[in-house]
């Protein structure tokens, strides 16, 4: 989008400045020259043409949607309150005018400030990652230290069940704080946030998803849940945090804090904001995994319908800055300032020794593991799917959600303790103490309980020890039990009302069974055990499991390769992820897609459902449409807007009889009402300052509800001229257009509303995203979802 805007500005160079200076009031009713007339130079027609392509697409109605909740388990509805984004800019004429006023330098500065913002996004995201990392390390360190001392004491004198209770209570305490914050303060901060960001990048605005409050709750919540010992990771929330940072920084103000820094006002609209949000998401990924390229690819994979080369380059800049900011501050924290070789929250460590080389005959083995990963992933997703439905139906009150989180925390501690207590797997302490908190329990002195390295640790450290500990530091029984329990714990935990990611638990499950595979292989082939290095198989297993659960492809491959820091693993990881995705997709969708579906978000996929060619726009559209006349009575507008049953977002503007002449948004109407831009008032107060684009921007993104606008009885009789403010060139389609074609228009242009007209340009219907997202390919052919209101 940004590019198009730029082009326009380029074409409008020249004598515009003089015109702009005239400052004719824009109020309706006065004899205002239309912008097109103002521009009556030779180039003007051309220019207007361009412009209209810019703006056009905005659109009309919207309903808001929210997803539904299955009455029968398998059907979904789209919820009525998700609002779609305005992908395009608003207000043709106002926008034109501002563009004219801006000099060439002005656009240069804009470009530079885009880079500055990306830099800031990177730095802030890196700092947040750093904060999370250090806090988790400190808190978890204290917790494990206390428990360890307690266990040591009670091993000697008896009373280990007290240690068990202590462990459970400490876990619960952390989770209680996190759970209360999420459940009562900001429920949208629950989970990993990746589904929400995916929707945002897809063009669906989920309420409150990029607020400052969400960021705070997310960051503190994730610290609590990781320190609370749940089977969760802090990587997913990082992506959400990056996105919120980006949305905040690029607007130069915070509506939550009521502070406006008067900066970056130009970027206060959906298109620009979305670009920055994708940069923020990329910065989050790159801070989480130390994978700048992976971050860029993640943004592209999830939000690629609005993509251009300069934007990609800026996104890359943001990710690079973020990973190295994290790096820099962590190096200071670890007492080696300036050492920039430690990127990422999760560090897989280096796979460098000879034993981790792989040979061609191992590739089939890897693919077999990929298939196992796909199967286990599908199982994981199915269980989680049923669990989530249960939660949506029965565990929806905040106090119940907090209680559930507490129970999970307590059970996690209990299960871990029991496993450690009954484990007989003792290993000698290594010389360099890989084990952060070695527990001895009933092992001989000088040995530690190897089950404890897996359970009595933050999940990330467990992953690292599975990757890198010496062959022989785990016995197969330990690994098998660990995989089994952790699989169910992680599955149970995802979807709780705490902010937490699923990346690390997946990696951990996968690493455990992968290592198990490696050990078994080595025992089957006693002659050449060199290639069956358990660490290598742990890595492959981790990739397979993660791929089987989240089903990401390109970006996940690159993230894994970057996180291991070893390009030679590119091929096996790619093969593994492919197999996992193919096998998994056969049974069940990816976890994020499931959750998007369960939240009833009208998410548009890449393609229209395969068998939908026979559907035409006439069948898809909503009809009849609420329209406004070009000069409309204020009373009518207020009534339509306040009608709660038709919560539309965009309205076609018509001249009688029903001929389409434009499209206007609810938010625009509200701003107009607020500033009382009425024909009669304009006559009486000619000197009043004219309404500027700035007024719309200031209102963005929280337009006041219609109820807050007071319109007196007299004013209701006034008229409003919508001509200046509507989008005069909306996209339209004839009524026989097929669904896939409409779908492509929406996906490629990022439309919100598409007016369906007959051959005389009369409005007969309106297609919105929700109308499209309703159709999906189910088991019995094409199915239609119901819309639901919450």
């Amino acid at each position, binding site marked *: 989008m940004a590019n198009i805007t730029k082009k326009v500005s380029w074409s409008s160079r020249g004598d515009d400045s003089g015109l702009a200076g005239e400052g004719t009031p824009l109020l309706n009713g006065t004899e205002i020259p239309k912008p097109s007339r103002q521009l009556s130079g030779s180039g003007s027609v051309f220019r207007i043409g361009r412009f209209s392509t810019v703006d056009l697409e905005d659109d009309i109605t919207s309903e808001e949607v929210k997803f*539904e*909740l299955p*009455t029968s388990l398998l059907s979904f*509805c789209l*919820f*009525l309150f998700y609002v779609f984004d305005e992908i395009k800019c608003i207000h043709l004429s106002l926008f034109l005018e501002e563009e004219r006023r801006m000099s060439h330098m002005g656009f240069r500065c804009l470009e530079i400030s885009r880079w500055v913002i990306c830099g800031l996004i990177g730095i802030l995201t890196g700092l947040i990652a750093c904060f999370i990392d250090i806090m988790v390390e400190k808190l978890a360190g204290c917790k494990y230290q206390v428990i360890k001392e307690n266990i040591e004491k009670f*091993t*000697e004198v*008896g*009373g*280990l*069940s007290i240690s*068990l*209770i202590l462990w*459970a209570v400490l876990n619960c305490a952390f989770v209680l704080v996190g759970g209360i914050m999420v459940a009562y303060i900001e429920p949208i901060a629950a989970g990993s946030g990746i589904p929400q960001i995916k929707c945002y990048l897809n063009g669906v605005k989920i309420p409150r998803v990029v607020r400052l409050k969400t960021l705070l709750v997310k960051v503190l919540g994730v610290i609590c849940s990781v320190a609370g010992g749940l089977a969760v990771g802090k990587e997913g929330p990082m992506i959400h945090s990056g996105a919120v940072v980006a949305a905040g920084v690029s607007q130069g103000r915070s509506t939550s804090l009521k502070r406006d820094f008067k900066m970056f006002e130009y970027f206060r609209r959906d298109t620009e904001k979305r670009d920055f949000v994708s940069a923020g998401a990329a910065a989050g990924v790159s801070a989480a995994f130390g994978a700048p390229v992976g971050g860029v690819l993640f943004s592209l994979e999830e939000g690629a319908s609005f993509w251009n080369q300069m934007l990609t380059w800026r996104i890359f800049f943001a990710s690079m800055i973020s990973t190295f900011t994290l790096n820099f501050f962590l190096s200071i924290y670890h007492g080696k300032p300036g050492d920039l070789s430690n990127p990422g929250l999760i560090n897989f460590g280096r796979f460098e020794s000879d034993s981790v080389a792989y040979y061609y005959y191992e590739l089939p083995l890897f693919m077999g593991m990929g298939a196992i990963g796909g199967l286990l992933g599908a199982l994981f997703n199915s269980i989680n799917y049923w669990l989530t439905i*249960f939660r*949506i*139906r*029965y*565990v*929806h009150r905040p106090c*119940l959600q907090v209680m*559930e989180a507490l*129970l*999970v925390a*307590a*059970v996690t*501690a*209990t*299960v871990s*303790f*029991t496993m450690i*207590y009954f484990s007989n797997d003792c290993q000698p302490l290594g010389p360099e103490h890989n084990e952060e908190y070695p527990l001895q*329990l*009933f*092992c*001989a*002195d*000088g*040995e530690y309980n190897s089950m404890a390295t897996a359970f009595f640790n933050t999940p990330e450290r467990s992953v690292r020890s599975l990757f890198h500990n010496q062959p022989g530091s785990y016995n197969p029984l330990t690994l098998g039990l660990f995989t089994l329990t952790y699989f169910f714990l992680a599955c149970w935990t995802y979807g709780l009302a705490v902010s937490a990611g699923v990346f690390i638990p997946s990696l951990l499950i996968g690493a455990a069974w992968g290592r198990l595979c490696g050990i078994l292989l080595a025992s089957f082939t006693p002659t050449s055990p060199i290639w069956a290095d358990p660490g290598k198989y742990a890595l492959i297993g981790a990739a397979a499991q993660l791929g089987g659960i989240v089903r990401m492809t390109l970006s996940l491959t690159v993230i894994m390769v970057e996180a291991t820091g070893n390009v030679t693993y590119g091929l096996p990881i790619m093969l593994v992820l492919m197999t996992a995705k193919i096998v998994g997709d056969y049974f069940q969708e990816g976890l994020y897609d499931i959750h998007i579906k369960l939240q009833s978000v009208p998410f548009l996929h890449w393609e229209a459902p395969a*068998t939908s060619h*026979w559907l035409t726009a*006439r*069948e898809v*559209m*909503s*009809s*009849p449409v609420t329209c406004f006349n070009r000069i409309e009575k204020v009373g009518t507008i207020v009534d339509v807007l306040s009608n709660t049953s038709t919560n539309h977002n965009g309205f076609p503007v018509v001249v009688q009889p029903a001929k389409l002449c434009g499209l206007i948004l609810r938010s625009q109407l509200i701003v107009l009402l607020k500033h009382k831009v009425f024909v009669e008032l304009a006559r009486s107060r000619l000197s009043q300052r004219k309404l500027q684009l700035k007024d719309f921007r200031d209102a963005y993104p929280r337009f006041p509800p219609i109820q807050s606008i007071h319109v007196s009885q007299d004013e209701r009789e006034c008229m409003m001229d919508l001509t200046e403010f509507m989008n005069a060139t909306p996209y339209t389609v004839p009524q026989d257009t097929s669904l896939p074609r409409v779908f492509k228009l929406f996906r490629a242009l990022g439309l919100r509303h598409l007016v369906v007209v007959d051959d005389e340009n009369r409005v*007969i*219907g309106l297609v919105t995203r929700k109308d499209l997202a309703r159709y999906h390919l189910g088991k*019995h*052919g*094409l*199915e*239609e979802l*119901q*819309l*639901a*209101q*919450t």
Partner: protein
Amino acid sequence: MLPYNLYLFFVFVAICVPSLKCGDVVHLSASESADKLEAVPSLSTAAIVSKPAVDTVFSFSLLSSFPDDLEVSDYCSDLLHIFGQRYVAYVNCLVPAARPVKVCQSCYSTYGNLVEIYNNISSDQMGPGNVTCRDSLLRSDRLMLVYQLYSNLESLWEDSNCAKCVTEHLESLTNDTLYFMATLNQTLTCFEKYQQGNHTELCKNCKSAYGTLNVLYSQMEKNSTLCIDIEDAMNMTRRLWSKNFNCSFPREENVPVIAVSSFMLFLPIIFYLSSFLHSEQKKRKLIHPRRAKSNTSLMNIQDKLS
């Protein structure tokens, strides 16, 4: 592996040292390599005294000689000679101390001597006749034998962490180490005393001694004043205690642990059951979208498809 190599090395050195007079090391080592193995028995005994051995080899190596200015000065060859002696002395001390590990306690003084002579060789200071041996002995050829030999032993010293147990100038063991050894001895004496008969007796009676030792050890671990001798002694003691005498803690509280955990595991079941039974199900109102024709229902779609 390492000690064996060293053994060969010192043999090697003993052969080569005297020959340096006549030529450079590479040259000689090649010509002598065949004799090396056969020379082992005699040299290893003779090395300590070293003079006789030198003589025997000397005759072999006098094949040719270089002009004076390229030769190693007498001073340097003396240094080299002493280096050889001390090297041999140190290695001789190390090998018997390999198991159980006592390399720090018994060999620190011989290592001190070796360091001293090596520092002499490698120092910048001019000896008599304004010669410095650093260049001629340490780095005039590709093999850099003296340097290699020394650095091998040096890394061995570093790996063993002996510096932690010995005072700064390698004069004596540190007080910590001596104290640890004393405590260790007490414990071992105790073990010996009760070794006969019932081990539970031993576990009970030696517990305090063993406990003190353990505490002392972990304290030293924290201050990082451990060397290989102490680590190894502690490992052996722990193994004795845990494996041989079977004194580690028994797992005897199964019942309370199982009770508490099954209680915990039971909670979620109650929770889910009660929320299933008592919480009202959240319902959503469906909205009927306005459509041009009433073809929105699933039924119709299916009809149309078929």
